[in-house]
């Protein structure tokens, strides 16, 4: 599996070499990214059928970043409720983010944590990488000091906490500690934390680790709102913030070499659309967001060095 990946990336890389002069000019507008691989942790924290929209949030984002080249093996997806095969679903096995949209739950979806496995403990374990030895590889976040990590949380939140499964809470302090641990273990190069919930700005309040850029769907005293309702199913199908995020990714970021920068992304959901002011926290992010490609986080450009030594795939790899 990994060899295939390497070969494939080699092809891409060779294409990247034959760039036009224009492309090179565009590159000057951006800082050269220091990362080699991209990872994403997409979490839908809320159980229950009527939280359909949170699942479709995650799935919509999942498809966008997959389209931009982040492979399944680098995406940890947590879905707290099995919405597609829920017996309440009039269209079994499918999830739609819009009334006339595409099915987000095709046969290519890989859910890593689902149902009761979506707990605060597991989430922290994923970030910090401290797992039960038996945990399979697909459930681990195997990042290194060269990975850009995207952490996306959606669900029901409150001031300085996020509800998991409607029963336990992930406080912003927990999140900050986890991120700090990741930094100390050298588990990321740059990190983008996105929280889409009510009062979500409070989630990144305590994050003080370097190279972390944090966004949120609403400020600490605000609610976030859902976008669309499907009257056949009888539930809201997507939240506003994520809706516009995915829109932005699909319209502006058509390919990996797109020139959209993070500032464009941050501006993509103004208050008149989101009905809430999106929060941004740049003070621990050294770069100028105007000079950072969106694809540094949402895509995987696979900038890679050639390996000199031979890789030995141990049994761990196959388990």
């Amino acid at each position, binding site marked *: 599996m990994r060899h295939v990946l390497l070969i494939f990336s080699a092809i891409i890389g060779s294409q990247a070499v034959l760039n036009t002069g224009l492309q090179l000019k565009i590159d000057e507008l951006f800082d050269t990214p220091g990362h080699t691989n991209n990872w994403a942790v997409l979490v839908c924290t809320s159980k*229950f*059928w*009527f939280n359909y929209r949170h699942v479709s949030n995650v799935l919509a984002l999942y498809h966008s970043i997959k389209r931009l080249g982040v492979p399944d093996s680098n995406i940890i997806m947590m879905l707290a409720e099995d919405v597609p*095969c*829920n*017996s*309440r*679903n*009039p269209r*079994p096995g499918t999830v739609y983010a819009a009334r006339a949209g595409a099915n987000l739950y095709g046969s290519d979806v890989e859910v890593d944590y689902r149902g009761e496995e979506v707990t605060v403990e597991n989430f922290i374990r994923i970030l910090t990488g401290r797992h039960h030895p038996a945990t399979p590889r697909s459930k681990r976040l195997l990042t290194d000091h060269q990975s850009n990590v995207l952490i996306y949380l959606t669900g029901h939140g409150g001031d300085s906490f996020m509800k998991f499964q409607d029963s336990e809470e992930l406080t912003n302090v927990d999140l900050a500690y986890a991120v700090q641990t990741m930094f100390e273990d050298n588990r990321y190069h740059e990190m983008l934390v996105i929280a889409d919930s009510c009062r979500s700005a409070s989630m990144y309040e305590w994050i003080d680790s370097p190279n972390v850029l944090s966004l949120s769907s609403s400020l600490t005293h605000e609610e976030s709102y859902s976008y669309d*309702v499907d*009257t*056949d*199913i*009888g*539930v809201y199908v997507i939240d506003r913030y994520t809706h516009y995020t995915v829109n932005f990714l699909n319209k502006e970021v058509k390919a990996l070499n797109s020139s959209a920068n993070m500032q464009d992304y941050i501006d993509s959901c103004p208050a008149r659309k989101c009905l809430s002011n999106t929060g941004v926290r740049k003070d621990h992010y050294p770069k100028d967001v105007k000079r950072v490609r969106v694809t540094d986080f949402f895509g995987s450009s696979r900038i890679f060095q050639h390996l000199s030594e031979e890789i030995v795939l141990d049994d761990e790899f196959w388990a």
Partner: protein
Amino acid sequence: MALEIAKDGGLARPKILERILRLRKIALVLAYIGAYFCSQYLFDPVNMEVTRISEHSLMPGLVTPKFDKSGIAIQLYRRLTALPKSKSQQEFVMDVFSEFGLQCFTQKWRSTIAGYPKRGENVYGFVRGQRNDGAEAQLIVVQLGHSESARRMITRMLSFVDYAKDQVYWARDFVFVFVDGGHGPDSIEQAAFALDAFLFKYQKIESLTSKTRRNATVVADEIQTQTGALIAGVVYDLSGISVKGQHIINIQTNGLNGQQVNLDVFNGIVKIADSKHHSKVAIFGTLHRHTNSYMEYSPFTVPIKALMTQAFVSIEGIHSVMGKYGVQGLTVGLSHDYTERQSVQFVEEVSRMLNNVLERLHQSYFMYVLADDMHFLSIGFYLLPTFILICPLLISAYYEWLKVDSNSEIPLAVIGIHLGGYAIYLTTQWIFTNIGEVFAFSTEFPFVGPDGCNGQFGGSMDIVIIYLAVTMLPLGLYMFSIHPLRPTSIPIMRIFILLEVSITILCLSLINFGLGVFTAAIVVPITFLMTFESPEKTRSLYRSLVLALLHPITIITVLAWQTPGYSTTFIPKKEFDTWTGVPIMFIRNMIKNDTAFGSWHFYLITIIGWPVWNMIFSCSLPYNLAVDRVAAKDREEREAREAGESGEEATTPEDPHPPTSVPTAKPTTSNVSKRNKRKNH
């Protein structure tokens, strides 16, 4: 460090208690005024909470109903109307279910109560969700019947069955029960009994306990097959009306013994009616300011009706027995003028709502008083008036406590009277169950009849009459006037009565608030005044006689007469006009509901109401007691002292001995001498 814990060696009472005790004489008045204004504030819809709808019962408001088989409904209606005499409605329903290819069974049931001889046959069918594991189900109940509206409802429900069986999104199975209420005037009640029989078997109650349930009042067929736990149940009929083209849906929420349906279910249905069908909702058969904006309504009409219904109506509708089996039940009377399509779509939406509810409905929305379809008062607030009302009793009890001295003991009469009440209860229940409401007896005397053969003497009696005769006569008045209690143990007796009454009211208002608050409003003043110490004889005699008239049944009757506007909703006209009608009807219903449905009224009135009523005589009769006078004197001088001294408590000299320890011999003698004096005058 010095932790000062005992003022005056623990003999001094805190000043606050002193102040409260001073209020005792006017406590009753204060409490009444307080309770009145408090409840007037609380029960005004303006001050009540607005019904908030939690997210999952909001769902149905968003679903577009898709039912489109009104043709089938009409066609079935024709079939049912043209049903040959040879064929029963049960068979018809069975046929239709089997045509749909669904499971359907019948259940014959028969009451074992001699006083309530009923029998019938239910039909129940299942619609199983396609992709669920069958662990949960929702119950839908329709009453069989030959009236036009009944037939319409049956056929509409059947067409909904046809529609529902093809839908893929049912997370819960359906249990459709067509209950057989007979055709009598009390068909609703009988239908409730039939549903009781069904649920009794469905929940397998009798095989739960180790020994056989002795109060199994019904013999019924076992349930053929079962799907999962019942989440909620809805009874549908067409009792709604429409005024000037404005549809008004009639919703009944009251269960047995003051249980009520979860507020979320109610809210959801109100929302459906409002948003989808532009219909208004009437509760307790009453129009209120929301349903009908043309007329002016008193804001208190609905709350009072709610309380009245909760207090005195055991079986409001067929749904009332569901609460007994842990099923959230209510009756939805769809508007009679709904089209087939509209009414079945209503059913569809309600089912979608109950289908979407994910958990057991939240427990904090069971205890409320509805003011209209969007305002309610929750338990935290409405208990307040009751608490205020029982305060005087507690104060009085504490006051009496200060009189208790060493040689006062609990009179055994207390236990005796309660046992007597229990005996009456058991015998009445036994007679009603085994012999019947009206039972005949006949005895033979040897050789006294004509030509020397055995003469016979016989007659028939109504159990209600006997019950009234037995309980109405003031046994206590007789008992305690012949053998009065020892004066020293009167305070104990008072305390006992006061505590029993207040505890009963407390427990009652926790479970059945309506009953609790009405009981409090009536019983508290009686108990308070009757246990108050009385200085002279005439007063005692007078109040004892008054008490003799204030039998619980009498009170209920008078209450019912005084409030015709409310009581006529559950008292038939015929009984209301005759003066014996109301009490007899009350007793009859109480006994019947007690044995057939397990309502608590009869139990309470016989095992607590009657004994207390009799026990109070023991306190209302005696007068001019030594203990009272001593206590009063003692209080006066203490108050005088405290008035004299400036308020600092540290230095006031005081009697370390409690007032109770004054020897009781002297006052009794003085008591005698006083009496003689009075004779001399």
